[in-house]
């Protein structure tokens, strides 16, 4: 599923929103998560998972073209830890709770 497909599904499920409005909201949500991590914060979505930063140590690397050694500085990367509910849903150990009604057509 792509971003625009997701936007269509959401717009359909919530009546009264155009795709354009929905895309704006989706953007606000995703940007909100990104910005929080950029500030060094952690984002916790219960039932879904947590987004946080992982720090990669500085290391020495080589430029494969010239062979010179370069220092790669400390780097922060986004990391997602899957929440318990989502983990179990995907593994099929428990019946999916939000599956019974609302068939996406």
């Amino acid at each position, binding site marked *: 599923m792509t971003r625009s497909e997701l936007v269509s599904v959401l717009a359909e499920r*919530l009546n009264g929103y155009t795709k354009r409005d929905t895309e704006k909201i989706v953007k606000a949500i995703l940007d909100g998560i990104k910005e929080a991590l*950029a500030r060094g914060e952690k984002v916790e979505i219960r039932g879904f998972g947590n987004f946080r*930063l992982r720090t990669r140590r500085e290391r020495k690397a080589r430029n494969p073209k010239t062979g010179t050694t370069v220092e790669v500085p400390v780097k922060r990367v*986004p990391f997602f830890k899957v929440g318990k509910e989502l983990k179990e849903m*995907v593994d099929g150990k428990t019946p999916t709770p939000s599956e019974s009604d609302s068939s996406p057509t």
Partner: protein
Amino acid sequence: MTKANLVDHIYEKVGLSKKEAMEMVELLFETIKDTLSQGESIKLSGFGTFSVRSKGSRRGRNPKTGVEIEIEPRRVVTFKPSVQFKSAVETGSDT
């Protein structure tokens, strides 16, 4: 930041009521969850990709007791952040 803070953020950015913002946040994550549980991945350009990977069975060991056990095949979710997400986060001032 929690789901509630995220709702506030949307409420400020977009002209929605708090109730509507909450509905939208809930629905977004529920839809992603449902899609992943059907084994389908989600590609959100500018953000990243959530995908489902199947892991085969393997032998494991209880680290406490040393007893060998069979770890059953399972499906797990992985997230790969997009280039934009990575570069937004990369050089933090406070590390």
